[in-house]
């Protein structure tokens, strides 16, 4: 009994320790004075790695998700003779929920896991230590560009996801199942609000981008410098990011619905 309480207490202390340390880590990363001359090349390299290289998986997934939503939606709407509302159904599902959430989950699996592994390997091979000893701050040189790149890239990827998913839905709904194209677009246009649907979705993706990349760089930076440590950190990044994306999606949706 005592040992159970002890381990519970230890877990609580470790949790508080991690939260505090990750908060300080984030503040130190964000508020480092940037060297403007080098900032853009570093950021653009990371934007390419986390953003452009994630494009294929995001767009392909979006296409199939849009097609599946169109198929499922058409079957249900047809029962009520409301198949003309298919465009509205696809747009609202994608823009409000599927776009931000699925993009963030795919981003966590593709880009964030790579960030953690990369920084963890830099720790294990003493690259971060050598940077410190060369009077170069790894928080500024390594962590900050990756954090900002994730924050910027995910909303853009989400917008592209939304567009591609709607295109996939159009392919199935209009081109294959024969829903009227005019009704598809008109109903969508009248039902989707820029502020309440599109903007809220982008706000969600901004939050998700920030959280998932923060977890990724933190886990990588503090990973144990060996192969087991790096694999554990990578797993933690994907698990924590995915869970937090889903939990925060509920919280943000509840706030935005009010």
């Amino acid at each position, binding site marked *: 009994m005592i040992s159970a309480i002890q381990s519970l207490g230890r877990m609580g202390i470790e949790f508080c320790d991690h939260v505090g340390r990750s908060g300080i880590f984030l503040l130190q990363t964000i508020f480092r004075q940037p060297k403007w001359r*080098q900032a853009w090349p570093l950021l653009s390299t990371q934007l390419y790695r986390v953003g452009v290289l994630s494009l294929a998986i995001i767009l392909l997934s979006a296409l199939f998700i849009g097609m599946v939503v169109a198929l499922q939606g058409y079957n249900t709407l047809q029962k009520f003779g409301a198949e003309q509302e298919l465009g509205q159904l696809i747009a609202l599902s994608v823009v409000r929920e599927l776009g931000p959430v699925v993009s963030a989950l795919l981003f966590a699996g593709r880009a964030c896991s790579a960030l953690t592994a990369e920084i963890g*390997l830099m720790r294990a*091979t*003493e*690259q971060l*230590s*050598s940077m*410190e*000893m*060369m*009077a*170069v*701050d790894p928080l500024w*040189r390594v962590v900050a560009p990756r954090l900002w790149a994730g924050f910027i890239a995910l909303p853009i990827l989400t917008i592209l996801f939304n567009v591609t998913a709607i295109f996939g839905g159009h392919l199935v709904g209009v081109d294959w199942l024969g829903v009227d194209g005019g009704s598809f677009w008109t109903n969508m246009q009248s039902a989707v609000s820029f502020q309440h649907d599109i903007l809220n979705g982008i706000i969600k993706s901004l939050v998700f981008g920030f959280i998932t990349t923060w977890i990724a760089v933190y886990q990588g930076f503090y990973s144990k410098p060996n192969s087991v440590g790096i694999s554990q950190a990578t797993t933690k990044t994907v698990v924590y990011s995915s869970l937090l994306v889903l939990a925060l999606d509920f919280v943000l949706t509840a706030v935005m619905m009010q």
Partner: protein
Amino acid sequence: MSEQGAPIICIKDLHFSREKKSVFAGLNIKVQQHKITAILGPSGTGKTTLLQLIGRQLLPDSGQITVDARDIADLSRKQLFRLRRRMGVLFQGGALFTDFNVYENVAFPLREHARLPEDMVQDLVLMMLEAVGLRGAVNLRIDQLSGGMARRVALARSVILGPDIMMYDEPFTGQDPIARGVLLSLIKQMNDALNLTSIVISHDVLETARIADYVYLLAEGRVLAEGTPEQMFNDESPLVKQFVQGNPDGPISFHYPVKPFEEALYD
């Protein structure tokens, strides 16, 4: 101890422990300016930890480390970074940036700290690579280098800013005899030509003694013996003899501390 030149690094009564295990308990070391000081000791005595403490990547539990008579624990972040610019470290594995090629690795400190035109950066990088015999490897990727080449590239990178102090962490480990010989002569030449102060951390007694001016032997968290390489070779104490001659039996046990095997069998 040879008193030529002033000590540039002083370590006084240093205590440091990691995960409740004592690494140093009252360590005292003085590193003379413009000399090569070797810090020798069996594996696991905390030699690499000592380099991290000198570079303030770790902080001691108690005691003092001074560089140029300034306690490094009192330095602000800015002052610490200024001090680190005067230090070069050759890490055990080289610690080269795997994203960059040889040229970009050597140019890295210049690009970070000196605003030089690209043609001057190129000249300096090629000059450094020429000094370590790798100008021909300027465009190679890091994964195309052998272990010895990687260390020479790392050496070029660590001296390109003209440091006052060079620290070498196990520079000869895992090197073939030719690479070891090349590294030995490079360390000696760099120290003399650039007027450096060098600290060589190693457990390779014979090789290190060839270039060292002064030697410290560490074991059990403190200095067991010190002196010139000749004094070390002539030392009659059993511990120094065991380490210098590489004997398996002696005061330093081959076995990790454990109760006798006979007792363990009857438990």
